């Protein structure tokens, strides 16, 4: 029953907000599954020339999974934060798949993942950013989260601040320095 499930997701989200970290582990597969399913469904009916945007998708999944009466602005940011992680995983796994295809694979791509590949962005970018971000997370988890929310979920500075419960000034600093660090790492690995 979709209704029962949507309640579960809301409950998980609220639990997560109240400090139950395990709730995120349960939440993510639901969000991931829903994102992929929805994307696949939309793609079958996609009109030509219409690119499905992942932010719109996440938005829709949010509306679908979350009981609006119980969730609020903060939950929305939390949800986007969870979805950020999911979008990151989908993008990275797709980039990997595409790379392996170029090296001789032959299977058809998953339609959804095709659709959310950013236009003009090279696959290696995504993979390299992801790898560098993993290293950054070892050093500074908060900075890595900021990048995930800003870059993968497309949240604004303000939205990121609200999702993480820190000030916008802090987000700006973290964001700048994280970009500097990542930029340096990527330049080094590109050499």
């Amino acid at each position, binding site marked *: 029953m979709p209704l029962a499930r949507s309640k579960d997701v809301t409950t998980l989200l609220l639990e997560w*907000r109240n400090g139950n970290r395990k709730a995120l582990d349960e939440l993510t597969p639901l969000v991931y599954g829903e994102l992929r399913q929805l994307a696949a469904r*939309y793609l079958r009916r996609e009109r030509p020339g219409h*690119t*499905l*945007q*992942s*932010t*719109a*998708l996440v*938005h*829709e999944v*949010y*509306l*679908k999974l979350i009981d*609006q*009466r*119980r*969730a*609020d*602005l*903060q*939950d*929305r*940011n939390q949800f986007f934060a969870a979805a950020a992680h999911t*979008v990151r995983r989908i*993008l990275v796994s797709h980039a990997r798949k595409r790379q392996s295809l170029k090296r001789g694979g032959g299977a058809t791509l998953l339609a959804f993942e095709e659709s959310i590949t*950013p236009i003009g*962005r090279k696959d290696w970018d*995504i993979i390299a*950013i992801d790898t560098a971000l993993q290293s950054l997370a070892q*050093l*500074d988890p908060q900075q890595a989260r900021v*990048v995930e929310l*800003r*870059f*993968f*979920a*497309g*949240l*604004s500075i*303000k*939205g*990121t*601040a*609200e*999702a993480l*419960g*820190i*000030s*916008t000034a802090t987000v700006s*600093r973290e964001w*700048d*320095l994280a*970009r*500097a*660090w*990542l*930029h*340096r790492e990527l*330049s080094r690995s590109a050499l």
Partner: protein
Amino acid sequence: MNPERWLQIKQVANACLDVEPNQREARLGELCGSDVSLLDEVKSLLASHADLGDFLETAAADPEPDELLTGQQIGSYQIREAVAEGGMGTVYRAVRASDFQKQVAIKVIKRGMDTNFMLRRFRQERQILAGLDHPHVARLLDGGATADGRPYLVMEYIEGRAITDYCEEEGLTIPERLRLFRIVCAAVQSAHQNLVVHRDLKPSNILVTADGLPKLLDFGIAKMLDPDSGPTVTSLGLMTPECASPEQLRGEPINTGTDIYALGVLLYYLLAGEPPYRFTTRSVEEIRRLVCEIEPRKPSEVRALPEDLDKIVLKAMHKDASHRYASAEQLSEDIGRYLAGQPVTARIDTFQYRALKFLARHKTASAASAMAVCALLAGMGATLAEVRVARMERARAERRSNDVRRLAESLMSELHDGVQKLPGSTGMRKLIVDRAVTSLDALTQDAGSDDGLRRELGKAYLRLGEVQGEPGKANLGSAQAAGVSFRKAVKLYEEIVNAASGTVQDRRELANAYGKLSTALWDTGGETEARSLDVKALRIRQALASRLAPVELGKELGSSYFIIGVHHLRSDLPAAVENYRKSVEAYERVLRAEPNSPVNMRNLSMAQKYLGGSLITQHHYAEALRSYEAAQAIDEMRIAADPQDTEARMDITLAYSDIGYILREQGDVRGALGYYEKVERLRSAIVAADPKDERAQSGLASAYFNIGRTLRLLHQTQEATAAFEKARQIRESLLALDSASSRAKVFLASTCAYLAAAYAELARGTKQPEARLALWRQALPHYRRAAEMIAALKGNGPLTGEAAETGAQVDRELPQCLAAIAELSPSAAQ
């Protein structure tokens, strides 16, 4: 590198970034001292920083930016400029292409947001807005889709100032501000009655136009264009922390109380000239703490104001929603009392609070000390009557209960009962119903073991079910949906009755709920369960006999006997007659006690008709005719009292129709036809006035059917086929509306079979072979359609009654029809 080292690097790097670029090197030297590796590390980071450009600034999967539509034409409007941009849409100022003077605001959904789901939401919200017609709410004018398929809404363009700016700039006096505010309350009240909660009432959403009248913007739009207020949003529907209620910040359900709070904040702002809270932080945690825990300064501490106004503002802004005003109307009324120099309820509330405190301190309080409290209150200026008002208000203060009551009473009663009698009202009710289902289900989830709330919910579900399609009233033909609502009501009342706190009234309501559920089940084929529910209801009522007033008891027993009579119709006719007689007696007693009551009249008239019907089946025609004539007389009185009363006009056709039947059975076929034609005329008029009234449609089909049958008795077979054909068309369309209804199938089957048989008779009476074949061929599809319906009905179990008769008829006549066609077909001749 380890996290500790990184933290050090980070601190140094940030410190360097805080100073001007040309001073960074020097600052870096100072901070690093002799730590060369630290210096190198930060230096390379700073170099990278200088080189960043827009690295990573475009999100991995960002939607393409929306191009502005400025200068373009949308529908019949010319876009002038973008006024605001939100997370999901852009608002433009536009003019009508045919009339540049006419300004409108157009909200266009963003590209990438136009997924099917969003589009559906957009449409839903558009419907809600369309129903929200209030002079002080910005009106929805039009809507459509752009060339690339994105939906848009055209709204009234409001040129004005935010209400707070207007009041300050114009230097309005306090009474002037209060009067302006009361207009806002009226607009919010009207929206609440339409089940729309604004959720984002704030000064910038309430504009005052040049003529000094307020207009509310973004009603429902907040929720639609910008579900949950994206963080990147600028002006559209962002939940403004200054106006957000404690429950919003806590993530609790949002309802009308949320808007009451926001009205309180607005009133505070208008009176004090500044908002109750000013936040220096953006931390949600901090804002939540402030709003949920800290009392704002009283408005009178900001500006000189009478204490009564403090009380009103703080009551509206109460942190506990159940202590706020129950509606915008009540808030407005209290301000009205202030303006008229009367005591305000916000203050009475405090008296009562003090009285309760007093009693709590003196646990041994006797009657004497209670009287002392009263005397004290009287001395403080509150009369006993006011205390009672306050107490009643407190008893009703559980706000969720109040929401349900609003729904059950305001919406259902006023709108439903009000519009029920008006022809053409069916479409309008559908909107209300859909909205109500969602709200009630949500409230039920939150009800827990709160009996008061569950009672209200039970009542609300009963009313809802009635609107959804209690058979026997103008309805939306959805007995199944009604059954679902009635079952929810039954469940709630059973729980209450089984709990220790169940009262006589609860048991009455349970019996009532059983009755309604039974009626809905009856219509969807659940007759066995319906019967057991009705027996349960009768038992409850008989057990309560000694505890109810005779009139009340009469009504309820009358309906129980009536329905038990219905159940006996098939199995035990004498028992059916017996029960109907008891029902008629009970209703006659009630009508004698309360003459001229339309409900009592209708009940008695129905019981008389059913008594007549059961007498007909026992072939007691003379006695049956007396019952119907009694019923007809009552219905004529009802129509005389209210010629608009569609129900009474429909009811009298039932009497006419059965009198027609009796006349036909007694051999007066012409007389019968006269009555049936009367029925047809009345029902046609009812259908013409409200084509969606399915009950009248069904009745009209029956009228044509009866006319067809009577015409056949008169050997006017040609005319009979025309009548049957009209009946058939209506039956088909009714089945399409409710394809699960077995009754609709039975009716369609028998109508088709009769129509086919009439063609068959015409064929038999025709000599010329081609014409004869053509008539048989006209009969065939109708036999087949009847056979199809019968086959579908067999899937539900063995056929009974009319279905069985039709089944036998089709089994007999369809092969004859096929044989005749085979014999006459040219191919067979070859």
